[in-house]
């Protein structure tokens, strides 16, 4: 139960704060590079869309968790996600990763995609 609460908090409760301070473009680029280099995309997808068959790999973009929550979770995750220690990804690097995730555009509206509207 704790695990699910933690995931729920990670995915749902903690986004949004970032919008107050739009990230610098260089941070976004570096964040993308780190997101791919460090394998975040393997479970969460290259644009943070999440893996729909795996509830432990939730969608992260375009509304990622707040930075403090992101760092706390990555250091000591619940459920199936492995921890990333600071020597693997520093707090500053995680900030850039978060900037990348926040920079990803919203998906097109469902109604605009004819193939998804039977």
């Amino acid at each position: 139960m704790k695990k699910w609460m933690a995931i729920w908090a990670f995915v749902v409760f903690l986004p949004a704060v970032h919008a107050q301070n739009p990230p610098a473009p260089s941070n976004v680029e570096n964040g993308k590079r780190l997101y791919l280099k460090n394998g975040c995309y393997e479970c969460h997808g290259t644009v943070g869309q999440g893996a729909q068959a795996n509830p432990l790999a939730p969608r992260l973009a375009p509304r990622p968790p707040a930075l403090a929550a992101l760092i706390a979770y990555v250091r000591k995750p619940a459920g199936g996600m492995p921890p990333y220690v600071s020597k693997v990804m520093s707090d500053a690097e995680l900030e850039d990763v978060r900037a990348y995730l926040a920079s990803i555009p919203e998906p097109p509206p469902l109604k605009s995609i004819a193939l998804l509207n039977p």
Partner: protein
Amino acid sequence: MSKSKKSRVGRRGFLRGAAVGAAAALAAKPPVAMAQQAVQSGTAQVAANAGPAAEARIIDRPGSDFMLEVFKSIGFDYLFANPGGSFGGLHESVINIGGNKDPEFITCMHEESSVAMSHGYAKVEGKPVLTMAHGTVGLQHAAMALYNAWCDRVPVYLVIGNTLDVQHRGGEVAWVHSVQDAAGMVREFVKWDDTPVSLQHFAESAVRAYKVAMTPPRLPVVLVADTEMQDNQIPAGENLRIPKLTLTAPPAGDPAAVAEAAKMLVAAENPVIVAGRAASSGSAEGLRLMVELAETLQAGVIDQYQRLNFPSHHRLNQSLNPRAALANADLVLALEPGDLYGTLRPVRQRRPIKVITITSGDLYLKSNYQDFQRFNDTDLSIGADAEATLPALIEAIKRLTTSDRRIAFEARGAKLADLSRQNLEQARVAATYGWDASPITTARLTTEVWAQVKNEDWSYASEALFVSNWPLKLWDMNKHYHYIGGKGGAGIGYGAPATLGAAVANKKHGRFTVNIQTDGDMMYAPGILWTAAHHRIPILTLMHNNRAYHQEVMGIQGTANHRGRGIDRIHIGTKIDDPFIDYAKLAQSMGVRSEGPISDPKDLGGAIRRGIEVVKRGEPYLIDVVTQGR
């Protein structure tokens, strides 16, 4: 539900028919070919002793001709095999005496492919094909596929050749291909095997093997065909008889237990049906009964999708959100469940819940291979085939349902329909994320395919797990062949051949087979592409080419991170790159038309359209799609 089949040649009239057929076939052959045949069929010693001027001794009534008639009496449509000398006698009888029809020889390029193709075929067609392999090296190749079929409760009928008598092992290779107990190495994961020592024994065991395989729980069987018995002349005057095949009626639940189950289900406030392989017969009937059961109760259904047990977009289908469906459940009816323990654990960690099981799994258990999962506490266990038990259960429920309960059922069903609509809407919204991404998302790939095949009589024959189950969410599946589940034993290498086997079954019904094919699985035995081209098997294959053993990427990444060592080297042993595999060229090299790699999702629609045109002309087509991990 018993069914009997008659031999096409008459069970007592075999010898006369076989002699005429053999004579006719041999008359059309040149003498050299006949002599070669004698050598190849295990009579080398006889031929060698005859001297240069003597004609080779002709075996005009070999035992394999009788074996073939036994197989014809059972009614096999196809023979899936990679050729092997230890069943060469049977092979020759099939193509010459049998005219390569019923069964028709489908050339496979690996024994694992032969068996996996049989696996896929049986799930679509509801009955096995004939499958053959060498008894040693062939069976060792085939073993993994047999294990998958065993775990998946699928009737695979495998005949293996072997030479028991040392006097007839012609040389070093024959010796290393001979074994004392040929079926022994797979005995732990087949339902039954036998090594007949006479032709009459063979006939009885062949018919028995089919009955055993087709009686729930349906499972693989192995029959050993001795090479001598295949190749030697049928003794004059031998009165051989092909036994009558009558399939065993599947075991249905005890009437008192079924009545008790109905009573519990009618009284429950929120019963939930969990189905693993409930619709197990490979026919429309299982699915129809499941719909009738759920609608009678207005109960939610969680399909574990080891078969298509329930229409994916039915208003009572709660499979997209099983946790929500179980949140308020007070009774679970589990029908041939898979991992029931895992499905119920989130609920049982919080509160007790009543459980009824109906499963043939209670009737069959082995010790060594532990596919039976964790033990489940139950309140009523019915050891029976679920599909065979459903008619009685449905009738009992109807008898017990009062008008008050019916009103309550309808209210329950209306709520479930709302949930089902919400779940589907959420799935569609989720599919929009990464819609234009490259590599292409599995949601986009799946949706693009669905848009173009939904108006065909289609069959999605591959497993949905590795594409995030999108087909199970977005495709309206309502026929048993729309989805046939997965590997069973989680052994990679199943996908490509099993979908091709399914395509063979679909072909005669004019169905359109779709395979979303993982890259790692394809490379276990890519020779299936040649089989598809050679036999003109229509199938649209879309490579889910994430260029990795992606499950293992995630696994090693997790291990490295748990050890705080970083993930710099997790590509070693897990990625399929440097070089990337060009699947379009691989397919072309084996005669399959293809295109790709496609990385831009905007290019998918046109490629699929071109592929469909080719497949509808009766040929295979492959599109290499570069995809996200899941």
